[in-house]
């Protein structure tokens, strides 16, 4: 009888021991699952179907944030347009900026494209630099380590388990990166244009050069004048690849392709976009579509 009681107690405490972690985007959620294993319950707030800058602040997200022990965000200004009022409305003291259960991953990332001068006259520029760092598979382990350090602080009792999870994930990911990098070495054509500067981290890692964007300024819809100048750039530099994301309109890219003979390829900006169900599938989809 006593044994049974202990057992049920053990099971219930085990249930309660699991940390509720909310992440703003899917890639961060997947990495959190790798590090946290079955000690965490992960909820992703922003669907990868949509523009990460413009996640709809549905009130149902308040209920999700309300019960979180930890909020992991991308940072770099990406959530500025939708997350702050949700954090305020969720009445959860644990996840306020500066509280123990708040983690901004961008603080661990060597940010690129940091503007030397900032004005909204240049469109929707991010003062902290380009926030789309998860497109580079080499960032995954930096993110994983940052998450583990945070989990250790919140749940020190399970330190050994988190360490084990991180170690095995690190091994797994290093092997993956080796073969991924080898595959990327086979890619010959390194000239691209993109819609928004979503893929700069990936392009920089694998020595691609981006010659321009379909949007004239960040967050501003394409104009005919800008499109014509981009067509000329593509022709002059013999660019064959137009990187299209899942959430912007596709007409402009198709038009440019028809005028230049370049090919439009669909590149996921986050895990889950373009049908990529796992971390590996996410980066593999980028590689398969970009590598020529």
């Amino acid at each position, binding site marked *: 009888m006593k044994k049974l009681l202990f057992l049920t107690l053990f099971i219930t405490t085990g249930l309660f021991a699991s940390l509720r972690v909310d992440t703003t985007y899917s890639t961060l959620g997947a990495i959190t699952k790798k590090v946290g294993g079955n000690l965490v319950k992960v909820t992703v707030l922003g669907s990868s179907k949509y523009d990460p800058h413009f996640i709809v602040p549905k*009130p*149902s997200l308040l*209920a999700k944030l*309300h019960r979180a022990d930890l909020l992991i965000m991308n940072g770099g200004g990406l959530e500025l*347009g939708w997350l702050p009022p949700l954090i305020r409305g*969720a*009445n959860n*003291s644990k996840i306020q900026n500066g509280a123990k259960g708040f983690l901004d991953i961008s603080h661990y990332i060597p940010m690129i494209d940091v503007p030397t001068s900032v004005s909204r006259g240049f469109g929707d520029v991010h003062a902290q630099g380009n926030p789309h760092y998860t497109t580079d598979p080499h960032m995954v382990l930096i993110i994983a380590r940052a998450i583990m350090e945070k989990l250790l602080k919140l749940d020190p009792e399970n330190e050994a388990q988190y360490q084990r999870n991180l170690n095995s994930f690190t091994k797994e990911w290093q092997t993956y990166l080796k073969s991924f990098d080898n595959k990327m070495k086979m890619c010959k054509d390194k000239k691209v244009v993109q819609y928004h500067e979503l893929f700069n981290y990936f392009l920089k890692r694998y020595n691609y050069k981006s010659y321009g964007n379909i949007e004239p300024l960040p967050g501003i819809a394409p104009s005919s004048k800008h499109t014509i100048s981009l067509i000329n750039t593509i022709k002059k530099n013999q660019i064959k690849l137009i990187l299209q994301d899942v959430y912007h309109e596709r007409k402009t890219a198709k038009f440019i392709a028809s005028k230049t003979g370049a090919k439009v390829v669909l590149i996921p900006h986050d895990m889950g976009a373009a049908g990529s169900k796992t971390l590996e599938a996410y980066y593999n989809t980028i590689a398969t579509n970009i590598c020529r």
Partner: protein
Amino acid sequence: MKKRIILSLLTVSSLYADAQMDAIKEQLEEQKEAMASLNAKLVQLEQKSTNNSASFSQNAYLPDMAFILNMSVVGRNVENSNYNDETTGFAIPGFINSGEAEQPFNANRGFNFNYAEVALHSTVDPYFDAFAIFHISEEGIEVEEAYVTTRSLPYSLKVKAGKFRSAFGRINEKHHHSWMFDEQPIIYKSLFGPDMISDAGVQLQWVAPTDTYIMAGVDAMQGRNNRSFGNMEKNNLYVGYVKTSLDVTDDLSLLSGVSLAHGETDLQKNSDVYGVDLTLREQLGSYSSLIWQSEYLQRNRDTNSVTLTTEKQAGLYSQFVYQYSNNYSTGVMYDRITKNETESLPTTYNTDNLDRYTAMVEYKPFPMSRLRLEASYDRTKVIDGARKDVKTVMLTLNIAAGAHGAHSY
């Protein structure tokens, strides 16, 4: 012969060894240079990381600041003297007497500079956030809202204190520039005026620990709004509400609420306003959606009269907006007074069918600027002692510069 071979071998090998030595020396040189340049960089970095800000500088702690400008050009089939004059202006039968309507927005035929607003937000300390919104018009500066909210209360609670807009209903909390139409819903204008329930007080809100969003709150306020309340002797306005939201599908979400505002009139009689609201939003893409938002409000107000001890008045609005892209959206709104049981109704003209039709087209070159063309056909107004169908067309420009305000649901 053998000797010769050995000798030549020896010289060759020694030559070979010399070459190796040279290569190693070269490598060493290269490494030395690399080290030197690294050292120089390190020194540079160290210099950079020293504090070079001005002594006592506190720039990093400045509040987030945004400023909002709102202006319009209006065409209307009523002369200004008959529309917004303090004695001869329009009336809404049963609700607003001639000339009593406050009209801070788009009152004039021709050009209107409605307001400039300065909004400040700062995290005070680990325990409080502070907000202030200053409304600046030609009449002067007004504190539209200024309040603190708590950050770290336990049990899912949050307290707001200061001067603020009550969370009654769906739009009471929203500022004029964030409404989906420039025209204020008639029932809100009739029961609460243009500023709606905005007053000094304290608010307590609680979020239920459930998977479905349920929020309940109470606002205790001074009750100075003299359209529906206005007992100035003591604080007497209490607003209670429950709001809930469901995701019907990933892209279809629903928000609804019930509210009650209980206060006293300047005659120290009970005045209760009930509200029900429902919003449905279908997301068609990142920048495209359909929004259907409706509210019904009813006021039961006790009077001194013996024949009608409680007057009952109610109305609704329903608006439908289609956001086509991040640049364009369009929408329609219908307003109606549905109940008007009051002794203040004039008998010299017909007071049935008080309603209004509104349509708008909006162009946003960028999320922070907005041009909106709005037309309305208003059958709620009495001008110069008779019912008058008021036709209005206006083009408004709204700018929100500075700190990025978040997009609302």
